[in-house]
């Protein structure tokens, strides 16, 4: 395994980690739009309160890894997706402050404003994640010099929006499964019913997305089937998706959540292994695509970063486990809660 491949793998781990972790708290935010009862609304926020910001850091590290390991990919993608990323930042800011501000003034009107900020600030990132993945898979207009030559509206094409709806439904289901673990009574039953309703929609959307990918980006299907890592990811995704309803029927909340986590990780793996070595395909001419080999940093940079990552990543994994252990179990509301 060469250095470039190692860094694609690490980047994949970071993005999959982000999708699994922030995925459920974005999902809880989307479900918040449909929550009516005040106590349940507070349960939503307190269920993710101690962990959501740590989860979002995975996106930052993913962006950081891309910046350091594959600078041209970072430059082209972040310039090309400029307005979309500004929109994403505005949504993430609204969502972050809504959780803090919501309980600070005892007025229904005040709380209502922050409920919308929290809900929409979660809805938008959940949708945009898929829109971004969709555009990357489909390929973005990149010219021979590696410059993005498309427009913001061009990013909102039907295929990318389809993948956006897929990620929205996937994260919302994932969030509902998280709430099943963290809540009790009526709210728990409702979260379970929501997840059960979203699962078939997710499966249909996934099948549609696969067919659409074949039509829009046939290059994805050229050599993927010959690759062992592709099949490993595909099997993980398939087992995860298939096990969600089985675990739910047996009231196994944690295994159901693990199953949807593997589904998310598996699907991201499938996307990445189908694209490899392309990281940002060009829709102008596939030959202009930025790949793990024509758009990487130098071997000494990649080596130095690898050493840092090998020290840093175990630390992150350990503290993540510690935090989730500290806050395990059902949410209990106190006057000091959000």
């Amino acid at each position: 395994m060469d250095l470039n491949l190692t860094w694609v793998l690490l980047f994949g781990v970071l993005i999959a980690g982000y999708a699994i972790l922030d995925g459920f708290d974005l999902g809880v935010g989307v479900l918040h739009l449909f929550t009516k009862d005040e106590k349940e609304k507070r349960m939503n926020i307190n269920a993710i309160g101690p962990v959501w910001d740590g989860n979002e850091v995975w996106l930052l590290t993913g962006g950081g890894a891309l910046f350091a390991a594959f600078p041209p990919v970072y430059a082209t993608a972040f310039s090309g997706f400029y307005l979309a990323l500004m929109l994403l930042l505005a949504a993430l800011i609204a969502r972050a402050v809504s959780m803090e501000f919501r309980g600070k003034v005892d007025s229904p009107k005040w709380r209502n404003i922050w409920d919308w900020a929290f809900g929409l600030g979660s809805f938008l990132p959940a949708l945009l994640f898929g829109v971004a993945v969709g555009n990357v898979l489909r390929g973005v207009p990149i010219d021979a010099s590696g410059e993005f030559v498309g427009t913001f509206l061009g990013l909102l094409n039907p295929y990318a929006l389809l993948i956006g709806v897929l990620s929205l439904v996937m994260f919302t289901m994932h969030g509902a499964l998280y709430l099943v673990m963290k809540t009790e009574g009526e709210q728990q039953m409702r979260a379970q019913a929501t997840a059960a309703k979203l699962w078939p929609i997710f499966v249909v959307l996934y099948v549609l997305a696969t067919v659409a990918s074949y039509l829009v980006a046939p290059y994805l299907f050229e050599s993927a089937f010959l690759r062992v890592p592709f099949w490993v990811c595909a099997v993980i995704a398939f087992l995860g998706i298939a096990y969600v309803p089985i675990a739910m029927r047996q009231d196994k909340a944690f295994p159901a959540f693990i199953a949807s986590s593997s589904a998310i990780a598996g699907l991201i793996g499938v996307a990445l292994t189908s694209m490899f070595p392309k990281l940002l395909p060009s829709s102008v001419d596939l030959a202009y695509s930025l790949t793990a080999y024509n758009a990487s940093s130098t071997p000494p940079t990649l080596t130095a970063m690898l050493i840092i990552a090998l020290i840093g990543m175990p630390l992150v994994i350990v503290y993540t486990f510690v935090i989730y252990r500290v806050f395990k179990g059902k949410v209990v509301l106190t006057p000091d809660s959000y």
Partner: protein
Amino acid sequence: LRTSEAHSIAVTAGEILFSTILFTCIYALLGSLYVFLLVKEVKHGVELTEGVRV
């Protein structure tokens, strides 16, 4: 490397203007909310528990 040589070609001046206005508004709003809440908390005063003398 000058700014004029280093900026993103794909990002237009209009987009930069848009994001500058966007962030100015966001931070102005958050700043005012912060002052509003701070003043409110200060006026509210400290919750005194038994046994504490001021």
